[in-house]
């Protein structure tokens, strides 16, 4: 703050939202009963070379001006976060939780946050969070130091602690489905014996899955049962999910995110929307689906580049986004579940001559999903149209609760054995987990030779077979498990492929 013509400058690579802080701060100060100093004000944001964005610094700028003009006095070391309105009210903003947590790690122990973000900020531990509803309240808090509001302790997660290993596999966090929107029950899906089984396998082992079927065969309905079939997040997963939700969410959180994410972006999604990016390096759908399911309906309709971009996140479980001057690594351990029509008209294979798609067109339609991506999909299942008779006559199907219980149990077995789900096993760990006997090895080779599989194809077979054994609750993978895994192989390499065409 310097003498001279009244003015207000923000230096340090502020973006538009931050530049506009000038107007918000001026209005807020005036409307909170303080005087806006008629002096030359310069706000410096350090470090100078890092681009700053957003409105979270409003409160800090306003309080800085008030302290600088000696209208308010501060006691001790504080951090203040919040966006100001012209009237002086405080608003929360996305990413509050990780900001508070980061401040906590930097030994800033007292933090003023907007009132509506209090619950979210308190999910961080080891920090003294106090809330203010307005700029004036914040100024009072600053002056009065430790005499903040009485605090209630919500359940917390040890943000700094990394010793979560022993907790994995314990019974905590293994309850079923706490999702708020559970979707339809599996019993509501008619028929589709094969697809039900495929879905159970996929969820139990975290395998990526593609459903192929004509319109109206129930692909989307089946996918929407997924949230009700998945176990809740364990503590470590919940911590990550909460931070991701905070960064990408529009509403302040009130509690830890415990429901497994189920994301179903429309096929018009942009590249950056899928993998993350944009001006703020925001996480994309692959990250928001971390530890959960990414459901892509009408798979071939997605932009090719967008689908290709899924490969690396699927393989590595994280996605590295680099932009000029900045880079970020986001977790992306999602399970891909996709649905597609067998051909552009959707009626291929209905056996009534209705599909008139040229064979070349059918091939091209499927080829929109590139080979490398198809290679990463463990389970393929066809969903034929359900005939009216089946719809009416087929008996009661198993409900979500029973399938979910089996999924939970199978996942527990996997975590106890190798600390990860089967879909994340490969190489020696996978072979060790399968523990194939002589006869089973020979059988696996036979199955693989039938279709001329690559090494990756064989791994896929073993992974799914391992999950089938886990669902049955046996430690050794038997021939029947291998057979079942082979049943859900990719349709492109079926042994009697020539008889299938057309």
């Amino acid at each position: 703050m310097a003498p001279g013509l009244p003015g207000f400058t923000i230096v340090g690579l502020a973006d538009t939202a931050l530049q506009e802080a000038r107007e918000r701060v001026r209005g807020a100060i005036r409307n909170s009963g303080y005087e806006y100093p008629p002096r030359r004000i310069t706000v410096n944001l350090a470090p100078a070379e890092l681009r700053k964005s957003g409105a979270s610094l409003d409160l800090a700028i306003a309080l800085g001006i008030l302290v600088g003009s000696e209208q308010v006095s501060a006691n001790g070391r504080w951090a203040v976060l919040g966006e100001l309105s012209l009237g002086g009210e405080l608003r929360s903003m996305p990413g509050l939780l990780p900001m508070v947590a980061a401040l906590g790690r930097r030994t800033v122990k007292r933090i003023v946050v907007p009132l509506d973000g209090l619950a979210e900020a308190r999910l961080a531990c080891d920090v003294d969070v106090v809330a203010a509803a307005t700029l004036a309240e914040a100024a009072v808090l600053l002056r009065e130091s430790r005499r903040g509001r009485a605090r209630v302790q919500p359940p917390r997660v040890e943000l700094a602690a990394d010793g979560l290993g022993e907790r994995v596999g314990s019974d905590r966090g293994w309850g079923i489905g706490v999702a708020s929107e559970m979707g339809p029950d599996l019993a509501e899906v008619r028929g589709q014996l094969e697809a039900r089984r495929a879905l159970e396998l996929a969820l139990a082992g975290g395998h990526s899955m593609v459903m192929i079927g004509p319109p109206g065969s129930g692909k989307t309905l089946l996918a929407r049962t997924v949230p009700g079939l998945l176990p809740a997040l364990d503590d470590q997963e919940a911590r990550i999910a909460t931070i991701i939700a905070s960064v990408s969410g529009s509403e302040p959180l009130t509690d830890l995110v415990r429901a497994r994410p189920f994301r179903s972006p429309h096929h018009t999604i942009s590249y950056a929307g899928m993998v993350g990016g944009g001006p703020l390096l925001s996480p994309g759908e692959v990250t928001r689906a971390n530890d959960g399911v990414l459901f892509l309906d009408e798979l071939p309709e997605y932009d090719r580049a967008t689908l290709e971009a899924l490969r690396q996140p699927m393989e590595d479980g994280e996605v590295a986004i680099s932009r000029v001057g900045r880079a970020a690594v986001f977790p992306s351990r999602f399970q891909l579940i996709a649905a597609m029509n067998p051909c552009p008209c959707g009626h291929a294979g209905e056996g009534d001559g209705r599909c008139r798609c040229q064979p070349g067109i059918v091939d091209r339609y499927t080829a929109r999903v590139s080979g490398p991506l198809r290679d990463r999909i463990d389970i393929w299942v066809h969903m034929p149209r359900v005939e009216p008779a089946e719809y009416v006559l087929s008996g009661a199907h198993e409900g979500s609760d029973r399938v979910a219980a089996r999924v939970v149990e199978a996942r527990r077995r996997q975590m106890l054995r190798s600390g990860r789900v089967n879909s994340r096993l490969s190489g020696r760990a996978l072979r060790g987990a399968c523990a194939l006997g002589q006869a089973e090895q020979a059988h696996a080779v036979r199955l693989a030779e039938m279709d001329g599989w690559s090494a990756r194809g064989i791994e896929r077979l073993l992974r799914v077979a391992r999950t089938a054994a886990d669902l049955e609750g046996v430690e050794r993978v038997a021939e029947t498990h291998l057979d079942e895994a082979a049943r859900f192989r990719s349709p492109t390499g079926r042994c009697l492929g020539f008889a299938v065409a057309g």
Partner: protein
Amino acid sequence: MLGVQSLGPVITRRVAEDEEPMSATTPTSRCPRTVDRAAMDLERDAWVVLLSVTGLGPVSFGALLAAFGSARAVLAAASAPAGPARLLQALADAAASPDGDPAAVFDACASAETEAGLPPSGFPTPRRRQSIGADLATRICEAAVGGAGEVERVRALGLTAITLEEPEYPARLREVELPPPLLYLRGSADALSARNAVAVVGTRWPTDKGRLIAGWIGSAIARAGAVVVSGLAVGIDGAAHAAVVGEGGQTVAVLGGGHARLFPKAHERLADAIVAAGGAVVSELPPDTSPSRGTFPRRNRLVSGLSDATVVVEAGCRSGALITAGWALEQGRECFLVPGPFDSPASAGCHAFLRSFPGQARLVSGIAELLEDLDLGGGAGSGVAVARGPGAPKNGPSTRQTQPGGRPSPSVPGAGRAAVLASLGPVERALAQELLLGPATADQLALRTSLAGAAVLSALTLLELRGLATGAYGRYLPSGRLAAWSDGPGSRLSE
């Protein structure tokens, strides 16, 4: 009468592999034909070069051949200085001479249009064009200079060329009007000249039932020792080919494009299987010709021409299979059509054809009846006994090691469907019998057999892995020995 074509002794092109390479110095005592073997090879290469020229159809080719006496002479003239002028001059001279009727050898057959109506009406009338344009002459000269490349290409693709002048050229095809001058062949040449050959064709968009019937007919004909000819298209064609391959029989696939542009791509493996089973894949087009709208009707003329009779399994109103049927009648071959429900769009073309050609087009009322009509059903002509009684043992699966006549090995008891069923466990057998009634989804099977879902799935897996069922788009069809025609439709179920 069908099925017996008077064929001279067939000298297969395998000779080139079986005997040591010959040269002009080889003693001529072994076979009188070996004298001009080298010359014949050169002449054949010249045909390959000439016929690879874009725009040079059978008519112009015939004109050139008549003017110069041999393809080699044409190439020699074309590669000399001022080649185009010499070609044109020679053609003009030949046309002027009184007995110069070069187009008599080969006439226009390239104009078969894809008119959608019933084919015989649209049958091409021979056009007599005896001269070639200057552009074409230039292209011929260019090909003559760089011609070795085309011959190399054919060889590198493992193809054999058969010219109309050679004895290996299938006699049945030679008989038709306007036979293609050159055939490019992959596989065995004797499949083309088998004693009996029947074309099985149909729509590319069959119903499941049509697919099954195509398989039955294909396997029944193969077991009766005849060769099945078809067009390698998806749908009925593919089902017929696959059934024959499943029987280990010989089948001939006629391509609508060149060998290097195999279409449809989805049937590349089927084509390999056909060749491996002793059959042949054949085309009249140079290897790098892309299939196009016009090439398929032309191909259909070969399908019917290579066969004694043509069977259409399913054909919509505008199906190309009807063009094949029309060609068959035009070529004086028999033509059979499988009827369907009268309101079925997939069979509408068959019905219309039957109605349009009373007394010529014939109805297929059953597999056994078809074999009888084809003179394959155990008559003296075929020399093959095909049992038609229920439960009778069927012939063995392989005719691969049979004589050039395509005669299958003697019947192997217990190889039939009953034996297959008997070898299955109770759940698998129940499913197999259910599948024989028609294609079904896993849900339908579970519903009809009242078996538990898990049991159905594992039994289906077993059937599929044993090759007795095929899953396509979630529906299961019998396949392999379960799909082969066995006891006739009336006795499909033993329970």
